[in-house]
């Protein structure tokens, strides 16, 4: 690796380096300058600097997004810089920004610098996870996210529920990390590569005969278990309700949105880029069901939708309700992941539908958590009873909650409806002649009808029942504005969904051209960074530039 290559890599990694510096800066500022100040004061100072820093990182990503036409691969896929990845990173940084705003001036602990520092480390993990196409890097980035989130979950050390939630999250997470690592080591052992594209290369054509497929199968199974924990899919979801309920609300929002986006992107990449050859099929059981990951993912999807939706009905705490609803939503997304390779060839509309849905889901959920935080901190808790008659006590927040709940349920003019529509349409189109996945789609639609019940139950609590406590609930202007913006975005994405989906489709013209474009053929020479500084168009011919 010569010096111009190093400079080029540093150039690619600018936003990540800024993010890292921001995390160190916050930690050091707190120790050196603010130790003697009051907690509120430190919270204000550090919160403002984090917000400014994150806005900066967001804009660097935006510049990269506009600037790039190519994909750059560093270290055999340990870091892949592409426009699609940058789009997700922008989403994650934006969500982190909202998380900081939500948690602004609600100190959960006296360790303010560490709170923000760990949060930024977690964002860093998500950013690295999104851009990694290497088993080793995927594992390290996932652990960076998880370790910081365990600590943040238990951050409210005085509260019993916070510590309990953190401990449960830690034990389940550690266990799942062991499963994940075991699975990844089997995949590595069977194919001899850690880079996803090299794995795909080892599974192609006449190479395939050399690969011990049963061993690979075990590896995939264990990996799915490990990643299933991270995305909270049933039956690996048991940590989610306790962690969501116990964690400080901004942290719960982060677990539910940013880390979900990153984990889903990693799962999609692993299955799509690394293991498309091992997909099998989940079409109309039993005649056209071939063994492969598609069948396993289909079973996990069905379990997630069933357990998530039916368990959510029985909840009386809003955060637990959101936790179970996120299990159900993981199920819906998995339906499209099954579809993606359903009939042997990649389904063109499935990947954009998944990306669109992840973004919509994260946006709606962070809005819902923001409202829960605003109301919960004033009304004294986040059980259903604290939300009774909220429409009279705080009409603005209640209206926003109504929008978010209806969007999560998938009611037409809102973004959630189109998210589900694209998702299920992609699953049906995956096998247009025989409608092989219709069984899964029909089940998913039935389950989303069930979900309407519990979302409306919360809405009824807020709008129909009379308030016991007539005092008004207000929140600060910054929170009101940002929550209002999220509500507006959920509405607009529902009115113009095609604008967003087109963007993903362009980046994905045939399922993943940009990711593919950077790759030299599998048995590649030992060049860590295939892109000199002056002429960055070397890796491959530019993928179709999304100019409309």
């Amino acid at each position: 690796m010569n010096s111009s290559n190093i400079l080029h890599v540093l150039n690619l990694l600018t936003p990540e380096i800024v993010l890292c510096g921001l995390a160190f800066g916050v930690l050091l500022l707190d120790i050196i300058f603010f130790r003697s100040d009051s907690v509120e004061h430190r919270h204000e100072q550090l919160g403002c600097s984090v917000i400014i820093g994150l806005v900066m990182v967001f804009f660097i990503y935006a510049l990269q997004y506009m600037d790039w036409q190519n994909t750059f691969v560093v270290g055999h896929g340990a870091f892949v810089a592409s426009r699609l990845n940058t789009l997700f990173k922008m989403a994650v940084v934006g969500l982190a920004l909202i998380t900081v705003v939500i948690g602004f001036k609600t100190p959960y602990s006296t360790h303010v610098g560490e709170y923000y520092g760990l949060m930024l480390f977690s964002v860093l993990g998500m950013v690295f996870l999104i851009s990694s196409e290497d088993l080793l890097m995927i594992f390290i980035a996932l652990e960076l996210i998880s370790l910081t989130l365990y600590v943040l979950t238990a951050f409210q050390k005085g509260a019993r529920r916070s510590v309990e939630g953190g401990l449960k999250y830690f034990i389940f997470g550690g266990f799942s990390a062991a499963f994940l690592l075991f699975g990844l080591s089997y995949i590595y052992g069977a194919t001899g590569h850690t880079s996803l594209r090299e794995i795909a290369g080892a599974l192609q054509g006449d190479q395939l005969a050399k690969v011990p497929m049963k061993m690979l199968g075990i590896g995939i199974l264990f990996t799915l278990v490990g990643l299933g924990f991270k995305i909270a899919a049933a039956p690996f979801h048991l940590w989610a309700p306790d962690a969501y309920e116990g964690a400080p609300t901004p942290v719960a929002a982060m677990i539910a949105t940013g880390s979900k986006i990153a984990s889903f992107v990693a799962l999609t990449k692993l299955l799509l880029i690394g293991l498309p050859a091992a997909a099998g099929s989940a079409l109309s059981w039993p005649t056209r069901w071939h063994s492969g990951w598609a069948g396993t993912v289909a079973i996990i999807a069905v379990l997630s939708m069933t357990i998530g939706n039916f368990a959510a009905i029985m909840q009386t705490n809003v955060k637990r309700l959101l936790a179970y609803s996120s299990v159900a939503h993981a199920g819906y997304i998995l339906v499209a992941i099954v579809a993606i390779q359903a009939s042997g060839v990649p389904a063109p509309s499935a990947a954009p539908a998944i990306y669109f849905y992840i973004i919509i889901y994260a946006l709606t959920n962070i809005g819902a958590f923001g409202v829960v935080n605003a109301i919960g901190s004033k009304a004294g808790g986040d059980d259903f009873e604290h939300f009774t008659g909220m429409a009279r006590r705080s009409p603005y927040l209640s209206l926003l909650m109504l929008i978010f709940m209806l969007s999560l349920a998938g009611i037409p003019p809102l973004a959630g409806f189109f998210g589900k529509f694209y998702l299920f349409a992609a699953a049906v189109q995956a096998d247009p002649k025989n409608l092989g996945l219709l069984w899964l789609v029909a089940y998913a639609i039935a389950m989303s009808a069930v979900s309407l019940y519990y979302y409306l139950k919360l809405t009824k609590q807020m709008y129909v029942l009379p308030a016991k406590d007539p005092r008004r609930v207000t929140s600060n202007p910054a929170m009101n504005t940002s929550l209002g913006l999220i509500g507006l975005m959920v509405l607009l994405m529902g009115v113009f969904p095609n604008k967003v989906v087109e963007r993903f489709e362009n980046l994905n013209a045939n399922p993943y051209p940009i990711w593919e474009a950077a790759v030299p053929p599998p048995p590649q020479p030992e060049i860590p960074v295939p892109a000199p500084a002056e002429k960055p168009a070397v890796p491959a011919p530019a993928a179709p530039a999304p100019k409309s």
Partner: protein
Amino acid sequence: MENSLFYFFSVAMLSCALLTITCKNPVSSVIFLVLAFFSMAGLFVLLNAFFLAAVQVLVYAGAIMVLFLFVIMLLNLPAEEKRHRGWFGGAASIFVMVALMLELSFVAHHEKLASSPASPGIDGTTEDVGMVLFSRYMLPFEVASLLLLAAMIGVIILSRKEKK
């Protein structure tokens, strides 16, 4: 010879790991963990990863576990009491374990795997490890340092006694 050593170290490692979990006395648990690490170092040697084996013994079995042992002895933890498990949880975990064992043995039986331990592409000398670590795996290596830092901050925060 190599095969029999492999089986010896594997069996030693697995049984020590099992004893680590099942032992009631924390001190003997830690000792078994040290033994498990030693057997793992033996496996690394069989794979030609000499540097890794040395580091495993020096860092894990040596430094970290001795520290662990000191802390546990200083804390003077009592032996753990008998835990009561529900029959459902026990039955379910045994079922899952048996199913996995059957599956793995099925794979081991039907797959034509190389009979000797995996052959690594490189000799595990310090030079080779360094070359790989600072070229191809540079980025994961750096991110791992962030991971350790985050873990350290987290542990300090969580274990600190709060002033009232």
